[in-house]
């Protein structure tokens, strides 16, 4: 019984997604075989450094990769069991905004400077409600603005008349206008002040509950993950290196991928004794020229000879998955730290 419900509740399934950018400098392997799924009302966090392929994954789902350079090579993206990758442009337009919406990183540039915010929210509604007149939709514009905490009378204002946090609220209002089942938030708070960040996150959480929206939260901030997510996928060089429920990823007693451990070591902890932060040595590899074997091996403290080439061991324990050769032995004796 449980099983069937869970199956129908799957909002999005991404399987083995591979996406590249064809540039003058060569083929950039941005996303390399990523798989994850989201259930109704669930939030998944895509965590990783800049260049890990998080945004590319999101754009691939929306099919908004740059037309000339970006390309989904293989894999499958199913929205409620419906394959998106085979849809044509017109069909995708019906999905975007209505079923899946996206919030972009920088609210300063995400709004058209020459249109009032009201017009921009209205546009979002009008695209997917072509049977309704402007008069019928206008009250909904007011409602949406109030929903994100902006007085409706301000709909006649232009983006430059709002602060960054308010702009992001407007972006959220646009994204939620048609009550999509899935919201992709690409670092929605990175460009904002810390105090505003919390407000915006709370607002998103509140709206998500109210509208029963599922969400993909893209972030490099583990604090944001802890606050908003149910599931976490840690991405490195276009791959998911660790995947599991929030509690599994944040449980220090479970085995983890060395990169995940590195990420946690790189944030200051309030509880523990004040030890120095341990940043991860080195840089993200050039995605046009990825290392053999485990992508993380050049930076890994525990790199072994077998990590430098060939297939990497995939550890699975229920919902918790780790892609690391260390887990091969760790599976039996637990992880010795």
């Amino acid at each position: 019984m449980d099983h069937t419900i869970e199956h129908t509740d799957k909002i999005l399934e991404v399987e083995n997604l591979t996406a590249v950018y064809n540039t003058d400098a060569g083929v950039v392997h941005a996303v390399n075989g990523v798989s994850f799924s989201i259930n109704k009302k669930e939030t998944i966090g895509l965590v990783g450094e800049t260049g890990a392929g998080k945004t590319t994954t999101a754009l691939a789902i929306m099919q908004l990769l740059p037309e000339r350079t970006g390309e989904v090579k293989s894999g499958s993206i199913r929205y409620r069991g419906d394959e998106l990758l085979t849809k044509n442009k017109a069909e995708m337009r019906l999905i975007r905004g209505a079923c899946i919406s996206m919030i972009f990183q920088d609210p300063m540039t995400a709004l058209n400077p020459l249109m009032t915010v009201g017009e921009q929210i209205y546009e979002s509604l009008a695209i997917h409600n072509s049977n309704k007149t402007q008069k019928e939709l206008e009250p909904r514009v007011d409602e949406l603005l109030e929903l994100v905490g902006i007085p409706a009378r301000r709909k006649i204002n232009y983006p430059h008349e709002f602060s960054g946090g308010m702009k992001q609220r407007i972006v959220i209002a646009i994204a939620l206008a048609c009550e999509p089942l899935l919201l992709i938030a690409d670092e929605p708070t990175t460009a904002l002040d810390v105090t505003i960040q919390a407000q915006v996150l709370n607002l998103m959480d509140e709206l998500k509950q109210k509208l029963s929206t599922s969400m993909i939260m893209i972030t490099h901030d583990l604090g944001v993950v802890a606050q908003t997510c149910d599931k976490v996928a840690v991405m490195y060089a276009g791959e998911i290196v660790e995947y599991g429920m929030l509690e599994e990823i944040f449980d220090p007693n479970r085995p983890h991928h060395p990169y995940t451990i590195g990420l946690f070591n790189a944030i200051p902890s309030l509880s523990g004794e004040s030890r120095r932060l341990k940043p991860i040595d080195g840089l993200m590899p050039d995605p046009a020229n990825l290392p053999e074997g485990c992508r993380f091996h050049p930076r890994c403290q525990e790199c072994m000879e077998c990590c430098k080439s060939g297939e990497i061991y995939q550890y699975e324990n229920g919902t918790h998955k780790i892609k690391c050769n260390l887990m091969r032995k760790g599976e039996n004796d637990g992880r010795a730290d």
Partner: protein
Amino acid sequence: MSKYILKRLLTLIPTLLAVIFIVYFIMDLTPGDPGTLILGERASQEEIDAKNEELGYNKPLPVRYVNYVADLVHGDMGNSWKSGRPVMGEIIARLPVTVTLAVGAILIGTVIGILVGILSAVKQYSFLDFSATAIAMALASFPGFWIGMMLILLFSLYLGWLPSFGGGDLKHYILPWITTACPFLASQMRMTRTSMLEVIRMDYIRTARAKGQRESKIIMQHALRNALLPVVTILGINFGGLLGGTVTIETVFTLPGVGSLIIEAIRTKDVPIVTGATVMLASFFAILMLIVDVLYAYIDPRIKSRYERK
């Protein structure tokens, strides 16, 4: 907003005064004096001096400048040294030809330039983009008057489709319009293309795509308006080039416009005509730049609010 326009109109006055001064000053450096010019080489020195005095030419430059401006306010630009007729009348008689030429060329250049520019940007790297860019580059590189000569050779002489010389009905303007529009069109097209390419990469275009908006509407409603700002600026600047360019093009097509009036006057050293015509065209240009500035505010609310705050 109207307050801003009024303010700009007021600042136009010192600009125009300065422009008039520069033109007047430059023309004053021209060797020769009106007495000699009007009465001819054979007249006696006394007669020439008397004539110069009558025209106020013996007074120092600043005084003559002030007198000139004072007369100008009353619509008097003095009299031609050559014909003795009022300069204002001579210019106004020639104005319709130049205005017809300029307006037609601007319409052709703007409409085609912007349209092709948009298409070129939207279909970047396509055959259309490649050929449009190449043609624009060529049009911008070859002298307008020479393109005019080639058009005459092709359409008037070999094909015999269009008249090549003189004014008259609008048919006579087709080749001059195309010729004048060429460099203008090239510049508008290139600017629109560049500007569109920049705007298409903006985040708000991606936002519009994420809403599920169709591409044609994204281009027309979101991208174009944002891309127009630099295009409008170039439009104003190009208009100045076009006013200068009409001089050569009127010569090629022997059109009796202000440009050819200036050239004739330069040849005969008829300083009042040159000064008057240049002042007239420069004033047009200054007023047009003001219109461009005001147009800006209607396109961009950020600029409008900045104007209103002042």
